[in-house]
């Protein structure tokens, strides 16, 4: 009898397990949230009026633009270099793969902050940089300080360091693709490069994208280290302002709010990117159905 009634109704009412502990955590969280709001509003040292004034000021916004520029250029270098180093590291040529390993070892093994300082003080190591024949005559040369400006030093420091991390991410992605995919491509007569480009890398993307998104977010924040090179990105712009008006906390808050806003935007972007690269998990693609209909219709008409 009970079995038949259960079968007739698709959902049977069940007495849910009670979670009294949850109410305690809700209460604790509510108290903490109230305390936070209270201190934010009542502690005048936060200086929200100052934050409101500077958050859209020209100096801060120009720093923001420079931070975005640094992030984009350094990540572009990092991704390109990382892809190249990953393929080099997987190469069967021992000289090529050893070079990649040594590069990764060095750039991951030293702090990016120290690397930035090195690029900043490059002129202390080589006062002049030249282009010429190895051990032969120099054809072109210039002052290091005129070539490696704070901006170039920042780009080199961040980009070359990022390349080492991206290399490991890309390599992990490539290795995550089943060996059978490569064999099937080889059996069809595809070259090594074509196999990599058409078969392996597109499938490695879904493994590469999530950590790369994290790297972009991390890079956005790491650009603040560049303030040590006196390059006016977001943090250094804020520092320049508070060195004059001594409103330190409000200006640090201003910079933090911008960092937080930008990382939030990036997180949302990453979500959509990941969804795009996992599309083969979901049913037939619309684009292909449309393409197929176009071909099949004339055939049926005949």
């Amino acid at each position: 009898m009970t079995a038949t009634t259960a079968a007739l109704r698709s959902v049977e009412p069940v007495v849910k397990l009670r979670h009294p502990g949850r109410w305690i955590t809700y209460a604790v969280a509510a108290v903490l949230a109230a305390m936070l709001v209270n201190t934010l509003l009542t502690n005048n040292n936060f200086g929200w009026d100052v934050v409101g004034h500077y958050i859209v000021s020209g100096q801060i916004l120009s720093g923001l633009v420079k931070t975005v520029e640094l992030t984009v250029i350094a990540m572009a270098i990092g991704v390109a270099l990382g892809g190249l180093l990953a393929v080099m590291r997987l190469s069967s040529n021992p000289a090529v793969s050893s070079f990649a390993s040594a590069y990764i070892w060095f750039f991951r093994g030293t702090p990016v902050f120290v690397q930035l300082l090195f690029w900043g003080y490059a002129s202390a190591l080589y006062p002049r940089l030249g282009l010429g024949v190895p051990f032969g005559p120099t054809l072109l040369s210039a002052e290091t300080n005129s070539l490696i400006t704070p901006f170039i030093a920042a780009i080199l420091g961040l980009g070359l360091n990022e390349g080492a991390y991206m290399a490991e991410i890309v390599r992990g992605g490539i290795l995550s693709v089943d060996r059978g995919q490569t064999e099937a491509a080889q059996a069809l007569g595809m070259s090594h490069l074509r196999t990599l480009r058409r078969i392996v890398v597109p499938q490695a993307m879904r493994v590469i994208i999530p950590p790369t998104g994290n790297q972009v977010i991390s890079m956005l924040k790491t650009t603040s280290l560049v303030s040590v090179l006196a390059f006016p990105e977001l943090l250094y712009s804020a520092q320049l302002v508070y060195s004059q008006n001594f409103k330190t906390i409000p200006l640090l808050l201003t910079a933090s709010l911008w960092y937080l806003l930008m990382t939030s935007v990036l997180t949302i972007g990453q979500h959509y990117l990941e969804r795009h690269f996992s599309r083969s998990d979901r049913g037939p693609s619309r684009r292909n159905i449309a393409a197929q209909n176009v071909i099949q219709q004339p055939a049926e008409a005949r």
Partner: protein
Amino acid sequence: MTIASGDTSKSTTNGASQPLASVPMIKAVNVHKSFGHIEVLRGIDLEVQRGEVMTLLGPSGSGKSTFLRLINHLEPLSAGRLYVDGSLVGYSERNGRLHELRPSAIERQRADLGMVFQRFNLFGHMTALENVMEAPVGVRKEKRTAVQKRALELLDRVGLGDKASSYPSALSGGQQQRVAIARALAMQPKLMLFDEPTSALDPELVGEVLDVMKDLARSGMTMVVVTHEIGFAREVADHAVFIDDGVVVESGEPAQVLTNPQHPRTKAFLSKVL
């Protein structure tokens, strides 16, 4: 009008140094293969004639799949000579010494041979149609429109005309394997290699793949099939070869080898499989 009959004429005109019908499609002479210290193949001699279907049987680890992978040079051989359509696979021979071919030459050799894998190995990020079209467009540089027409015909032929826009993850194992066969046929190969094509399939899906293979055999395609499907071997194959411990133990007509084996090792194997 079948694709395979078109290939037979192509391979005779397109063949290498000796485009004679008498040249066997595959000729193995004393083929050895070692992985480190382990000798997997210890002197294989066999021939596959044009249009012939050969099944390779044997216990797992006997070296039959390894032999198949030597035929399209997915593995290099360790010693001996292996010819496909009269040409050495993966090497050229000068003054009795083997010289490795350039990658591009090996790729050209592979493009003429179709291979079907145990685990299907369809490209997961491409639809069935894109899988079938990838090599003719990318490797042979054929016109996309012509390839698309042929690819849809091939998918129809393996009974999957309505699945052209499906991704592999949306297909059953049997459907994936049939797409894999269509993908190999799209290159209009002179020879098809099957590496245990039904071993990874649920029992009820084996039949649909074997049916496609039978149809292909009937159309005159030269096929080498590593399989445990004794029924298929008996029904379709012209030639059955039993390999154990890296050597050919017994070979001949399937009826002979499979129903009245002479060698005790063949008998022992068949008693376990049947």
